[in-house]
């Protein structure tokens, strides 16, 4: 970091943060930046609740007999973990916080296209989330987050209906957010901000929003049908009437597989920003990376059947889904190679954001390739519904999406708060998360291949060593997650003022003050350069 002139602290300057200090000024704000902060609080709350459930699960699995939780308690714990993590943390995590905060800033707009809808969407999300959480804790649900019929409709006890209602409500928040993003990106770009000049973060959020708008309604309808069958005893998927439970799975995965891309695409957008800023160099192959986001969103709609290779669906359908699942990996591979190539001949500072981005690239690559193994029919027949699958999707969702989320926090924290945090502690937490994560989830790949099915409350004793290893990793991971909470909060009062552009980054969001004023820009910027316009050639180290 070069020496900065004396900077104003965030408190001394007009910004969105001190535009009003009452609770009301936050809860009724239509400022996209304030709504992003509201989301940040809400998703952090849900994250720690669901992480607590994960801790219970890992503690229980320390011994083969599962002494900590009762069977029912265990089943409820993993259902809570899955439901809350998927719908109330992972899906809204990056889009609703960083997407909300950054999209208008990055494209040079004063706010979202529909600011009031944006706030409404937060209330819908929070209402759905708290209702779901109450139902999960007070009544308990033991169906798993997948709600497969007929277990969920005819056999499971607990508050299945309430939880489903909460998820459906939250789904409308997703739809409205995605709609808002698309309209904003289409209609509110600053003069000169052509599609070819958009940051890659915007491209990935555009692709994500398309999935949010088009896939979420199918989930909503599926859950409505499930509720109708459970509450009114209608025959929708009931095999006794000739109905087919597999149709539920088709509809469910038609949403829930694209939902994986809702989680990972925004993280990819974040990583594109982090890598270019960390390398102080143009991203390698802008158009390949941008189009890869759209390709993932499009092909991602056609691969849902790879969750059903052993379900009894037609073998020919399985073969087609297997092939398409290999196809959808191609754009992801493009991104990984392009990020790596971006570092070539860069001017690299190993600050926390870049470390998180590198953790993302490594873990996502491993997770993605293990996903290809699952896409191979003969391998999936063995490892389907085992810990191999659990390890795979945690590499994508925790190693990928959560690393991306933390990378985003470490990159844009100075912009959001106007303060710098301790870079050393940031590096320590990135390293701790990488280590703890691998220790937690790599043993689960092996467990899966050895034949340990998922959602087991007790397990044969020969699996204990690997389970203990995994639980040990989980405790490292838990500590590494708490660390940023401490030093980031500490930085709010004690961190040095960040200045508008502490990372020497090129996006429009770095041209306005940190924290930004309520209307983002004093005058709307006019864009006349491509994204990431670092000098194309650079002499020897430019000190």
């Amino acid at each position: 970091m070069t020496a900065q002139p004396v900077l104003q602290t965030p408190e001394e300057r007009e910004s969105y943060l001190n535009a009003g200090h009452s609770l009301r000024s936050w809860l009724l704000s239509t400022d996209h930046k304030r709504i992003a902060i509201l989301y940040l609080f809400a998703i952090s709350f849900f994250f720690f609740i669901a992480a607590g459930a994960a801790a219970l699960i890992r503690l229980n699995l320390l011994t083969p007999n599962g002494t900590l939780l009762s069977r029912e308690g265990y089943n409820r714990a993993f259902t809570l973990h899955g439901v809350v993590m998927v719908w109330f943390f992972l899906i809204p995590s990056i889009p609703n916080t960083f997407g909300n905060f950054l999209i208008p800033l990055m494209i040079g707009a004063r706010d979202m296209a529909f600011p009031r809808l944006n706030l409404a969407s937060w209330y819908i999300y929070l209402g759905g989330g708290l209702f779901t959480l109450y139902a999960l804790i007070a009544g308990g649900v033991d169906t798993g987050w997948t709600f497969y019929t007929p277990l969920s409709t005819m056999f499971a006890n607990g508050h299945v209906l309430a939880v489903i209602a909460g998820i459906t409500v939250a789904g409308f928040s997703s739809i409205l957010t995605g709609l808002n993003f698309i309209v904003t990106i289409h209609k509110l770009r600053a003069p000169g901000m052509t599609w070819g000049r958009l940051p890659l973060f915007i491209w990935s959020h555009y692709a994500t929003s398309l999935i949010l708008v088009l896939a979420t309604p199918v989930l909503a309808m599926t859950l409505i049908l499930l509720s109708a069958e459970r509450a009114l005893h209608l025959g929708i998927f009931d095999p006794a009437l000739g109905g087919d439970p597999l149709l539920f799975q088709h509809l469910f995965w038609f949403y829930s597989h694209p939902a994986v891309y809702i989680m990972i695409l925004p993280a990819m957008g974040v990583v594109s920003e982090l890598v270019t800023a960390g390398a102080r160099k143009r991203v390698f192959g802008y158009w390949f990376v941008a189009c890869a986001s759209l390709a993932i969103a499009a092909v991602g709609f056609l691969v849902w059947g790879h969750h059903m290779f052993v379900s009894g669906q037609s073998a020919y359908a399985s073969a087609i889904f297997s092939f398409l699942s290999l196809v959808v990996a191609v754009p992801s591979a493009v991104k990984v190679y392009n990020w790596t190539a971006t570092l070539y001949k860069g001017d690299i500072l190993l600050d926390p954001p870049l470390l998180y981005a590198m953790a993302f690239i490594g873990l996502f690559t491993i997770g993605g390739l293990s996903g290809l193994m699952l896409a191979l029919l003969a391998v999936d027949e063995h490892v389907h519904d085992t810990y191999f699958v659990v390890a795979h999707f945690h590499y994508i969702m925790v190693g990928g999406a959560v690393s991306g989320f933390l990378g985003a926090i470490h990159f844009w924290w100075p912009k959001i708060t106007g303060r710098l945090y301790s870079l050393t502690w940031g590096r320590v937490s990135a390293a701790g998360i990488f280590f703890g994560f691998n220790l937690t989830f790599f043993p689960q790949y092996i467990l899966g291949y050895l034949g340990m099915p998922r959602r087991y409350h007790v397990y044969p004793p020969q699996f204990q060593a690997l389970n203990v290893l995994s639980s040990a990793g989980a405790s490292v991971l838990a500590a590494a997650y708490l660390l940023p909470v401490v030093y980031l909060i500490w930085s709010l009062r004690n961190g040095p003022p960040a200045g508008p552009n502490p990372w020497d980054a090129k996006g429009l969001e770095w041209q306005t003050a940190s924290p930004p004023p309520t209307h983002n820009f004093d005058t709307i910027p006019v864009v006349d350069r491509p994204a990431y316009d670092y000098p194309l050639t650079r002499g020897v180290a430019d000190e």
Partner: protein
Amino acid sequence: MNPFFQAWPPEASIHAVRVDQLFMAFTALTVLLTAPVFILMAIFAIRYRHGRDVDRTHAPSHGVRIETAWTLAPFLLALAFFGYSSWLFFDEGRAPPDALTIDVLAKQWMWKFEHPGGQREINDLHVPAGQPVKLVMTSQDVIHSLFLPALRLKQDVLPGRYTTLWFKADRPGIYALRCSQFCGFDHAVMAGRFVVMRPGDYARWLQAAGTDGSLAQQGFQLYRRLGCSGCHAAQSTQRAPSLEGLYGHPIPLEGGRVVVADDQYLRDSILAPNKDVAAGYQPIMPTFARQVSEADLLALVAYLKSLGAGPDQEARR
């Protein structure tokens, strides 16, 4: 020997060997594709770190050829794996016509197998080695999944329809049999043994399993087949009351009432177990109304009566 390979799951068929080979080959491909990313990231991060005096001129910002190359090469490699794995999968989908057919009925939370000769067993599955075996499976309630790790095979078992799975196990031995599709409360213990026997041993086992005996002995067979012993045996991990010496004795119920365990009570407890639950136990026993005929009920009650006289050796004698 490397402990990793000691921990390798046993291979009981040619198919298992092939799947392992495929898996190892793809793991090698994973390393091949991942290593450059890790190594290059590390090299670049060190070589081009801020402040180092290195040549940064002519940094490329795109390169269509190299991008096309690193897009297509891994994809074509993966396609080869796709071909082989799909062939293995389709091969596993067509049972030979001479396969021995065994019926499988899954229910919360037990497996029931019925051999062609009428021999039935619960949770354990005995099959002859070297002979194709076809399982025809259905579920009585929710979706289960029969998972035979030693064969690298699994297949979901659905209510209201039949799914099939065939295999030829070559290596006699005792292997694991598990449920891999979450099916509720006791999903984790819906498991048993998968016993591959030499054909001669299998024939002898069939004979031994097929004999009929006295009413109590038939009841004992039913008691075992229906899985009652899975929960009611003294060494069981399930909390279910012991049935020894039960007949004719007063039973305190949840809620304070006391009944005498007569024929009627035993019968009701099998058909509607949650009607009168013994004090201190959870109402977790499933109903057997749809699995037992009146004759079965008589045999079961006869067996339970015989337990009242003493330890259950009597029935087995």
